[in-house]
């Protein structure tokens, strides 16, 4: 086991270097750079600015400059926000994280329960209802659902805030502050949950259906075990195995911010920063953020592999 972990770790380092290289060049291929987007500059001034920011150097050189700095922990200054990249991201990434993690917990709990019950009671009205709901949520874009909820809860009933993380002009601290943020989180978390619940429920349902038909379940039932024991002790464990892989994908998602949701609810998250950095070719932010997510992806995959092996004794790691 230790050997395996070590191996994966080494592979991870190699991949990270490789990824950073590929991404840097990919971004460099995007037409136009930060200075170009300001068309009111004279070419002289533009040249001056490019030199100031080091944008007129060849790509390879820029890459190594970036790499050198990054290895020292200096990820540079955001061109657009004029502040250190790390502090910029730190300001916003936790807001996205909290919404994402609540949504994750909710999604998985609800999906697990509905998926399993739908499978057990296949073709019942419950199954039908869940299926219908899942597909309806999938067919309409998040934009609609968000606006609808805002209208119902924010404007008509006025029981939930329309956007933002805190009440306007609020100075609350401590518990009051937590409650306030919590109240503002309700709609974003709900929307995110609704959006992800569909696919996950389907996975659980299918997994469960497959397992239920296996012979060993029949054996368990034949042995006279209570249905509840059959389901929870024997079937469930095996049914959720494939879903473990899915959990690994969630790790980068926790930090990447939900762009549309953050926009509509004016949630100060990292999604908008990411989008802006692409539109404005803000390289330092792009690179730092992408490398961060890249790390998370690789770690997530690694964790998934290890967990999978740990949970299913039939699988050998090597």
């Amino acid at each position, binding site marked *: 086991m230790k050997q395996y972990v070590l191996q994966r770790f080494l592979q991870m380092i190699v991949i990270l270097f490789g990824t950073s290289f590929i991404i840097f060049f990919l971004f460099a291929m995007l037409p136009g750079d930060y200075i170009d987007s300001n068309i009111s500059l004279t070419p002289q001034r533009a040249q001056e600015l490019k030199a100031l920011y080091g944008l007129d150097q060849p790509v390879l050189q820029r890459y190594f400059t970036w790499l050198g700095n990054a290895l020292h922990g200096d990820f540079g200054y955001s061109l657009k926000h004029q502040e250190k990249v790390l502090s910029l991201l730190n300001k916003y990434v936790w807001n996205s994280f909290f919404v994402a993690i609540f949504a994750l917990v909710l999604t998985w709990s609800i999906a697990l329960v509905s998926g399993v019950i739908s499978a057990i009671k296949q073709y019942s009205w419950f199954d039908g209802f869940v299926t219908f709901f899942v597909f309806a949520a999938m*067919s309409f874009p998040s934009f609609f659902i968000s606006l609808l909820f805002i209208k119902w809860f924010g404007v008509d009933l006025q029981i939930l805030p329309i956007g933002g993380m805190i009440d306007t002009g609020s100075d609350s601290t401590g518990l009051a502050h937590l409650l306030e943020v919590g109240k503002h989180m309700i709609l974003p978390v709900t929307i995110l949950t609704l959006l992800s619940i569909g696919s996950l429920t389907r996975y659980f349902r299918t997994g469960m259906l497959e397992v239920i038909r296996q012979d060993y379940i029949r054996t368990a039932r034949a042995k006279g075990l209570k249905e509840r024991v059959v389901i929870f002790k024997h079937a469930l464990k095996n049914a959720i195995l494939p879903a473990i892989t899915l959990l690994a994908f969630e790790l980068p998602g926790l930090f990447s911010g939900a762009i549309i949701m953050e926009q509509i609810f004016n949630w100060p998250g990292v999604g908008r920063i990411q989008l802006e950095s692409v539109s404005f070719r803000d390289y330092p932010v*792009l690179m730092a953020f992408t490398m961060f997510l890249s790390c998370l992806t690789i770690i997530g*995959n690694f964790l998934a592999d290890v967990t999978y092996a740990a949970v299913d004794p039939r*699988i050998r790691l090597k």
Partner: protein
Amino acid sequence: MDTPNPIVNKQVKTVVKSPSIWKQTFRRLKKNKLAMISLFFLLFMFLLSFIGPYFSPYILDRTNVANMNQPPSAAHWLGTDNYGRDVLTRLMMAGQISLTIGIAAMVLSVMIGSLLGAISGFYRGVVDMVIMRVADILMSIPGLPLLLILAAILSEWKVPAEYRLYIIMIMLSFVGWPGLARLVRGQILSLKEQPFMQATEVLGLSDRRKILHHLIPNTVPLLLVVATLNVAGSILSESALSFLGLGVVPPTPSWGNMMDAANNFMDFRKRPWLWIPPGTAIFLTVVSINLLGDGLRDALDPKMRR
């Protein structure tokens, strides 16, 4: 004996040939009412999309601003949009694009993903490591910049707009396979250790047979779920892509971009005939594919006796 014994002949003639696996499957499928309804609905949607427009009295893209934003009426069964174009006609034309994209993109990514995942899970070792690490790298590269670059490259090469859509679909499949491959690989890892695989080993089956005829078919239920989710996703992603200049080029309609056109609050509230038809079309298509898929899975499973 010169003349053959008639009784023996008759017996020979009455040996029954068992029907092929497909005939059996289809017969079982027919019994599933929901699946059959779905099948017919899908056929109907295809016909509506590909043949329907010929029956429409309206020229697709002709704008008629005097007529804009009219609610459904006898002249326009589903009303008009903000350029005065007939919504029903556009819905039908949009079906061509959305159905094609949805299904083609799904087929491509499922094929690539499941094959690579299976190979990876089956052979383990170096092959597994290489494939999975490449998958890691692909998964880490952010989609948005990648697509923007693609758009820029296609623009530089002056690729005609009509072809770009198909190229994008292929690229999306290439980029989307890592997720699917991991799922399949996971399944394969467990399946590989099961007794029936030992049996195939004993029987001396070739690797190819083992993978294609035994392992992958057992992942079909999982693949079906992924496939149906993928179709809905592709249809909706296409409209997101058009914002980047990669999807369907306006004024060509697709269900996704018809819905996006109504994404401001006023249209949403006051002009539901703009977004309800495409939304419903997507919904019903996705549901049908899923029910059909469920039905297929049940029909393929010899253990089901309904």
